[in-house]
């Protein structure tokens, strides 16, 4: 009896919020912009300051070109933005397709509570990280050319990646849209969007395989310029496999943080399911890292690069593949056996550091490795500030949304009733 009553109340509340016109939506949106809680936390102040600085630098970069703010040059055309934001960021957002695959295709319902959070994270990552690509373009005012068909460079890997970015962003938006529709109270839209989910997931997984691998395929023509230990014609496969464990690793960390910081937004079901989900993901990560290492070893052996292990670059390679892929794998296994979430979190952090290092190596550390030190690229502090700005915007928007929509909890009663 009691339960029924609460359902009624919830229904009433959402019923009242049904929005019919654009004006209503706009007023509602403005009212939601206000921060919840005290905005003057140290983190907010710090990140706000960085973002302010970052915005100035971004405008400055647009006005003056790339060279005053960055260290990019003829020897190293790509730098930390491409390496850390685009190449790593997209791998980190890989949870969007792995989790959708697990829940929708493999039907493992116990992972569902984490799904919305993951899709939201992935969506924002794509919007901001792919957006960051625009800052990085030398002729950013023409960024639309590959989309409007001012020649389609169909044999260009980047062309394929760019289109897949765009399509996948739309797909992720579609996957997340039920949550947005619930928040605003668009009932009819919610119904339609909910029904489109499976199609969107299937399409999304296909797109993800393409562009995750595509990011690696961009380097396939760097033969002779990328150090042989990193270069391989099978880089696309390596990129794809590493995104399978990078995505869930990020979600292990992100969800552990949101569980703590946003406990009031997390519902009973998710809170109880969370440790189990993390263990499951950790198992998956361990298995995938194993596959990744196996492939790495085969490639190094097959391409006769083993003798390079004793050179300085070889040691650096061992740091990446040994300390930041093999060790996290062991830690994942250990954590799963002991059911120790702290160990799993540590493993996830190390694994991510490994993926990040791998991307940076490909973009500039092991690229043109034979050049003398004086010609080498290292990021300027302005580049780092802009990078942090992009990440902080991402965090702010993520926070804003999980504080308002049903991301960490089940959809409201009315939406759930319609679904089945």
């Amino acid at each position: 009896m009691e339960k029924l009553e609460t359902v009624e109340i919830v229904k009433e509340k959402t019923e009242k919020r049904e929005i019919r016109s654009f004006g209503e939506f706009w007023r509602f949106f403005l009212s939601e912009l206000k921060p919840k809680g005290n905005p003057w936390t140290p983190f907010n102040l710090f990140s706000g300051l960085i973002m302010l600085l970052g915005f100035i630098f971004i405008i400055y970069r647009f006005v003056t070109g790339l060279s005053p703010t960055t260290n990019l040059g003829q020897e190293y055309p790509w730098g930390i933005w491409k390496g850390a934001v685009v190449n790593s960021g997209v791998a980190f957002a890989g949870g969007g397709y792995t989790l959708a695959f697990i829940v929708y295709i493999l039907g493992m319902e116990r992972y569902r509570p984490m799904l919305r959070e993951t899709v939201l994270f992935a969506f924002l990552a794509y919007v901001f990280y792919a957006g960051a690509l625009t800052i990085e373009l030398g002729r950013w005012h023409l960024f639309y050319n590959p989309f409007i068909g001012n020649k389609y460079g169909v044999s260009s890997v980047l062309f394929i990646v760019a289109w897949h970015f765009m399509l996948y962003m739309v797909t992720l938006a579609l996957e997340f849209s039920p949550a947005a529709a619930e928040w605003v109270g668009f009932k009819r839209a919610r119904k339609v969007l909910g029904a489109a989910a499976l199609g969107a997931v299937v399409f999304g997984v296909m797109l993800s395989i393409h562009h995750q691998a595509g990011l690696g395929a961009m380097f396939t023509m760097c033969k002779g310029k990328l150090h042989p230990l990193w270069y391989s014609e099978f880089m696309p496969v390596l990129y794809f496999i590493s995104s399978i464990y990078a995505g869930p690793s990020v979600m292990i960390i992100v969800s552990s943080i949101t569980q703590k910081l946003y406990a009031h937004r997390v519902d009973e079901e998710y809170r109880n399911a969370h440790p189990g989900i993390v263990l499951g993901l950790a198992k998956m990560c361990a298995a995938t890292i194993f596959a990744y290492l196996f492939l790495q070893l085969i490639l190094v052996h097959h391409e006769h690069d083993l003798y390079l292990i004793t050179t300085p670059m070889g040691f650096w390679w061992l740091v990446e593949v040994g300390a930041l892929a093999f060790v996290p794998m062991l830690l994942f296994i250990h954590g799963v056996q002991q059911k120790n979430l702290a160990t799993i979190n540590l493993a996830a952090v190390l694994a991510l550091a490994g993926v990040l290092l791998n991307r940076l190596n490909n973009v500039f550390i092991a690229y043109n490795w034979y050049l003398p030190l004086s010609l080498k690229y290292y990021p300027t502090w302005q580049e780092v500030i802009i990078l942090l700005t992009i990440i902080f915007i991402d965090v702010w928007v993520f926070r804003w949304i999980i504080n308002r929509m049903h991301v960490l909890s089940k959809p409201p009663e009315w939406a759930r009733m319609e679904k089945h």
Partner: protein
Amino acid sequence: MNRRTFLKVMGSAVAGATCGSLIRPAASGAQGVFDANEFFGILIDTTRCIGCRLCEKACAEVNYLPNPDISEKANQAVFKTKRDTSVIEYTVTNLYETEKGKVFVPWRCMHCNQPACHSACIVYALEKRETGHVTWDKRCIGCRLCMMSCPFQIPKHTFQEPAAVIQKCNLCYGRFLQGIVPGCVEACPTEALMFGTRRKLLEEGKRRIAQNPGRYINHIYGEFEIGGTSTMYLSAVPFDQIGLRTDLGLKHYPEYSMVYLSAIPFIAGLTPIAMLGIAHVIRMAKKDAKEEHHDHHEEKEKH
């Protein structure tokens, strides 16, 4: 038919059938022309080059670049370091100390038969023309994948400009259309540079090698390197001594991204079907399990 060509053929077949033109691999327009083999190019005879840098001066004039100082004194200073082409120098001449003494080597875009830069370009701003010229167009978006991909590190980007451009030798395409030979070729006093169709140049190069066996090593750099190039070199000493990369192999560079590109249509066609299949099987299995469970219950209740 080996496995790779098979995959490629299959790939394009599936692509054509499923995805239309959008993601079809290997559509680099240069392929057909390559077969016709009538690209134009430049043969550089390093045994004839005297390091006068008149070609550099001519190049600057033709392309409206800052005029280089090529006086005797300036040259002495210039040849102390190895220069790379830059946003204001499309061609540079370098001095190499070799086993046969000093050799001057003019250096510029190789105008590859199957250019990595063209195949990497997201909007085909860098284009292999049917005549063999690799040119740049202002539709470029500045992604710089061409710079990452070019094995000779030729495309140069004006990082200091808000609307940056890619700068490189275009084999004087504009002059070619008017029927004039490239500026550098015209300026060269010793005919170290020679312009013509690739076929003619190869013939000429082989003739020189055959007639002066002591003077040249028996190889034309660029005949087969990375699938052939339009800028080709004759030399008296092995090519690694005059700063040309000999470790690049004979396979043309776009081939390297082919593994990925040919897999795309397969993945696009097969994964959705496979996924829907898996989802369906799993759902049916779950349903069966539920029903069985149900049956058990009913049986128990009956007893």
